[in-house]
């Protein structure tokens, strides 16, 4: 194998286009795991999943199995799930509660922070071995940090703080949490795991893509539009069908009414495209009355109005997290191989909100993130089909230039598309990709032609 130099890598990303090889080359993929997943802040779980001391959760960064643990002192630990003895995976379950970790192979046990607690037959080892050496442990990931309950880990010892890394995207997490009348979220309702035979980057590249629904989702848009509302529904189908109809918003709507905003380090969010009052709390349909009352009761009328007026659709945190505040969804993209990806999606319960809100969250999840959904299944087909197409010997360059000439500088160090069909968010992710792949640092937002930003962010 000929080593891939930084110069090679820089040659793979040009204004408005990238090389096909970035999605197909196993050597590039290994470098991505090392340089992107090996240094950036990666989402590993939510604090509600490890609420009490002794709670633990199996998670991962890239392909590395990890444990997120609530230590006896209440602190969060992120441990490599590997025994210091012969390397067996210590915890085989998805999560649970314990006062120690014990390896099933020879009974080595560990404290919740990963330090070796005890091991049988500790005699006759050579001089290098010291059971009191802190390296003789289930080793901790160098950095773990939380922003408003969302926990991230970084395999790099040094780098920007989590808040610096997130930058203005902290406001999307605020939006997520502030919608809970009780001021907190909890993971609930199960996890979808879906897979496709394509590169991990394709997933986030699709989630702010305002130009794809009319094509990719045509079958579910047509079917939902033709559906009679007179037929029996227990409520779940109604949410689903309304959402599918909204996906049929015409190009003119996306071009004129919806925005796309991007920020340093590859992050972005898409504005909302919904005008169905049964799907958007801010539109004040009676279905949201109890929820809004609970919000106003805790936060007051003005603050509630401000919170609900924030209208973002997907917020993408580079490299592999996407979430959506209005129906409390979160997706984590796990790269398995250059053309194999698994995505885990979660729902959150808004503490203090009426039960019906969470039922709608579930219905929405089934519709948009469900493995058997009428919507997502066509997205998964596209990812696989891109994977298949890229295995051909067609053009070595892939285009990400839609709206390039209209990119505008924006507040908070960001850059936005002139309208929401711009691929600015993909270009922005590749700026971050390039910086991490070549220099292991944050990305700067390249300055587009200096023009005044006229619009205010949602």
């Amino acid at each position, binding site marked *: 194998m000929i080593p891939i130099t930084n110069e090679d890598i820089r040659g793979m990303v040009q204004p408005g286009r990238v090389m096909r090889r970035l999605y197909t080359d196993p050597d590039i993929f290994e470098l991505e795991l090392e340089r992107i997943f090996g240094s950036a802040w990666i989402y590993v779980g939510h604090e509600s999943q490890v609420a009490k001391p002794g709670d633990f959760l199996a998670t991962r960064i890239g392909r590395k199995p990890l444990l997120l643990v609530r230590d006896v002192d209440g602190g969060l630990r992120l441990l490599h799930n590997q025994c210091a003895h012969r390397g067996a995976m210590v915890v085989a379950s998805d999560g649970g509660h314990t006062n120690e970790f014990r390896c099933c192979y020879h009974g080595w046990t560990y404290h919740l922070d990963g330090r070796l607690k005890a091991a049988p037959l500790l005699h006759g080892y050579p001089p290098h071995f010291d059971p009191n050496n802190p390296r003789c442990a289930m080793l901790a990931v160098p950095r773990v940090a939380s922003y408003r309950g969302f926990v991230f880990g970084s395999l790099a010892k040094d780098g920007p703080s989590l808040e610096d890394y997130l930058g203005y995207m902290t406001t999307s997490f605020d939006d997520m949490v502030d919608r809970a009348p009780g001021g907190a979220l909890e993971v609930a309702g199960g996890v979808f795991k879906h897979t496709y035979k394509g590169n991990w980057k394709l997933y986030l590249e699709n989630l702010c893509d305002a130009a794809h629904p009319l094509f990719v989702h045509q*079958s579910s848009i047509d079917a939902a539009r033709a559906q009679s509302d007179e037929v*029996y529904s227990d409520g779940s*189908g109604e949410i689903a069908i309304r959402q599918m109809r909204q996906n049929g918003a015409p190009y003119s709507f996306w071009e004129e009414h919806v925005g796309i905003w991007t920020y340093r380090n590859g992050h972005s969010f898409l504005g909302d495209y919904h005008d169905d009052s049964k799907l958007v709390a801010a539109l004040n349909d009676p279905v949201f009355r109890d929820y809004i009352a609970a919000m106003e009761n805790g936060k007051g009328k003005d603050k509630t109005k401000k919170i609900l007026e924030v209208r973002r659709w997907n917020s993408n945190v580079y490299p592999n997290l996407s979430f959506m505040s209005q129906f409390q969804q979160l997706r984590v993209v796990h790269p398995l191989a250059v053309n194999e990806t698994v995505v885990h999606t979660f729902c959150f319960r808004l503490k203090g909100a009426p039960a019906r809100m969470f039922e709608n969250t579930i219905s929405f999840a089934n519709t948009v993130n469900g*493995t*058997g959904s009428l919507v997502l299944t066509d997205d*998964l*087909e*596209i990812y696989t089909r891109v994977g298949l197409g890229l295995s051909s010997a067609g053009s070595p360059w892939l285009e990400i230039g839609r709206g390039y000439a209209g990119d505008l500088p924006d507040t908070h160090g960001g850059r936005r598309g002139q309208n929401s069909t711009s691929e600015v968010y993909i270009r922005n992710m590749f700026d971050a990709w390039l910086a991490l792949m070549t220099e292991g640092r944050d990305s700067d937002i390249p300055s587009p032609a200096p023009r005044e930003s006229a619009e205010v962010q949602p």
Partner: protein
Amino acid sequence: MTLPQRSAQSRAQAAPFTVAECEAFLVREAQLLDDGRFDEWLALFTADAWYWVPIEPNQASPRDTISLIYDDRRLLETRVRRLASPRIYSQEPRSRTSRMIANLTIEENSAEACTVRSKFQLLEYRREAQRIFGGTARHRLVRHDDGIRIAWKRVDLVNCDAPHEGLVVPF
């Protein structure tokens, strides 16, 4: 049809369901699905039916937990209509399926309705790859003027909580 035959039929209808008639019904349902006759499959369901494929073993409710599929009657109609769309890219190419049903037992039985538990195996072939699904199905069957209808159907896959590629053809 002669009078004595009609009375024999109404006597049969007043009796609880038999395993044989439930099996004939489930085999018929499987044939419709394997043949891609989804409109006829939909017609087997009652006007307020639901169709459920849980994502967790022993899942108690589709309301507070996600599901691989949970369709009320309205969404089931939309699902079936989409299956007929020429723009359903996740069915381009179309799947071919083959279903086996076995081990039928009737869990709850009366003259009007019964709950049938069965095992199934489903082969799905699409784009040079074959998937195997298996598990337990429960059908709530009710008598209707012109035959049996499904009031609800629950399908518990053995690997319900595994990572899956898209699930498009109904179980």
